[in-house]
């Protein structure tokens, strides 16, 4: 129980401390969601780097390493090496140029206000599905921390929901950015502290792990460059497609951009952010592969619980606590980011436009906080009954994918409203078809819904924009407007 006390104390202490500090600095209700252009590059980098770094980098890889070995690390390597730099160097600054407050508003600025209806109804449900999945991960960690003594449902699930709320309730985005600054350090240091300890604990160090796998004819498990079809089509291609074209439409990624002082503050963290994002995945895979090389652990557990079993088997309670805090840092940063994004979009893009002038500063702030609580509760509700939702997890990602493809093409190439509408509707139909009634002729490696959704969305986007007339891409128009304004100033 020492481990769970360490974890709960850590998040309660820093949650309340940073919550009260950030609450004092809020100058208006708009600050709650955007921290209004006050974050420097380090805070922006930490907040953004931790936003997409959740169960995908940690618990999911712990599970997958049992089948694919250390080559699952390509998930973290490519997320940090491709997605983080691409977003911080281009996508983030593009969004900042549009001078909007939410991603649906950005889409509305390009394709007209009616298309916001699609984004504000589909995307938050997808983000909620991801928050649910992360909440399940948090509940499992709490369950393991308590050695199985705390009932999973409802106690662990409700505690997970409470931690989500504590992360952001008082200070919103500013509080999350403070939390993420310290959590980025704890995530890396805590994870690698566990790796160093186990290296010392193994009689022959990590050479024992390689020797064991070589002796049973499975040396590929410790080979990072084991590019099997499962690794290429199940890890490497999905991580790039999902991050660049789906995660990029999640409003949680843009909240740190809204909070950034300027475009330079966004770009500066591209390299370091990528390294942190990649490194965060390593400890969990190393510990998982090590656990499965110890016959007494491998025979009594699955890949999913391998790291927890190894920790309980070999580590002192204080180190289990630190390791689990590191894991919770990853999961909570993502789930609370999603919850804050849902609350922001529902408050500012749905309820605020309905109420109009009836909403003042105080009621906006009150509503914002209530929306955080409601979104956290909505993420907890299914978690009380479900313990795993992998198929739906990809369905949720695929809901956002066509939205970003339309946005991307509208930014860099051409704007045609009808093409965007056709694309969104057909891609949505394909997503439902592939998720709930996948055709029998589909090869197993393409059964995940984002493959056909990406192909249909990108293919349609290019074909429709080639054959239909449209306006210039948004970036070109922004550039021309800038030169026009500069010309007026010169005159």
């Amino acid at each position, binding site marked *: 129980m020492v481990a769970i006390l360490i974890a709960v104390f850590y998040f309660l202490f820093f949650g309340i401390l940073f919550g009260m500090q950030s609450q004092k600095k809020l100058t208006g209700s708009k600050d709650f969601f955007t921290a209004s252009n006050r974050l420097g590059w380090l805070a922006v980098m930490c907040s953004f780097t931790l936003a997409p770094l959740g169960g995908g980098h940690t618990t999911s890889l712990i599970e997958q390493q049992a089948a694919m070995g250390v080559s699952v690390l390509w998930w973290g390597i490519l997320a940090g090496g491709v997605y983080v730099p691409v977003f911080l160097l281009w996508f983030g600054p593009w969004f900042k140029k549009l001078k909007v407050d939410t991603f649906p508003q950005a889409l509305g600025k390009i394709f007209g*206000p*009616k298309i*916001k*209806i699609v984004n*504000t*109804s*589909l995307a*938050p*449900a*997808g983000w*909620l*599905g991801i928050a*649910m999945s992360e909440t399940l991960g948090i509940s499992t960690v709490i369950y393991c921390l308590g050695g199985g003594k705390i009932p999973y449902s409802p106690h662990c699930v409700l505690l997970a929901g409470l931690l989500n709320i504590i992360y952001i309730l008082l200070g919103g985005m500013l509080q999350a950015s403070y939390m993420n600054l310290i959590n980025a350090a704890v995530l890396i240091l805590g994870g690698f502290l566990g790796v160093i300890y186990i290296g010392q604990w193994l009689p022959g160090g990590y050479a024992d792990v390689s020797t064991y796998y070589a002796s049973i004819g499975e040396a590929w498990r410790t080979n990072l460059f084991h590019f099997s079809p499962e690794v290429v089509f199940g890890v490497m291609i999905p991580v790039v497609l999902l991050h660049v074209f789906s995660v990029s439409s999640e409003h949680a990624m843009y909240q740190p951009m809204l909070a950034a002082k300027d475009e330079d503050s966004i770009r500066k963290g591209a390299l370091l952010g990528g390294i942190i994002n990649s490194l965060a995945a390593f400890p969990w895979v190393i510990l998982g592969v090590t656990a499965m090389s110890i016959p007494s652990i491998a025979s009594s557990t699955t890949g999913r619980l391998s790291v927890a079993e190894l920790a309980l088997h070999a580590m002192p309670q204080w180190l289990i606590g630190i390791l689990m805090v590191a894991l919770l840092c990853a999961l909570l940063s993502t789930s609370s980011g999603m919850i804050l994004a849902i609350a922001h979009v*529902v408050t500012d*893009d*749905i*309820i605020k*436009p*309905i109420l*109009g002038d009836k909403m003042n500063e105080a009621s906006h702030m009150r509503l914002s906080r209530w929306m955080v609580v409601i979104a956290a509760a*909505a993420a907890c*509700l*299914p978690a009380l*009954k*479900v313990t795993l*939702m992998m*198929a*739906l997890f990809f*369905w*949720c990602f695929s809901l956002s994918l066509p939205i970003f493809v339309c946005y991307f093409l509208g930014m860099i190439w051409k704007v045609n409203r009808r093409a965007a509408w056709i694309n969104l509707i057909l891609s949505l139909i394909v997503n439902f078809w592939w*998720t*709930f009634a996948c055709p029998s002729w589909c090869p197993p490696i393409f059964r995940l819904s984002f493959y056909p959704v990406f192909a249909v969305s990108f293919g349609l986007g290019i074909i429709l924009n080639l054959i239909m007339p449209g306006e210039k891409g948004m970036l070109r128009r922004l550039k021309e407007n800038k030169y026009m304004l500069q010309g007026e100033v010169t005159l």
Partner: protein
Amino acid sequence: MAVVDIIVAAYLVGIIVVLGILSTIAYKKQVERGEITE
């Protein structure tokens, strides 16, 4: 697909429908007030 997945999917689809209705009302209200053009 497991039954629990179908139930969670129905839950999320229900949320999509509710948000869709509210978003449509928000859009119409903004058009009425002249904040945006249809």
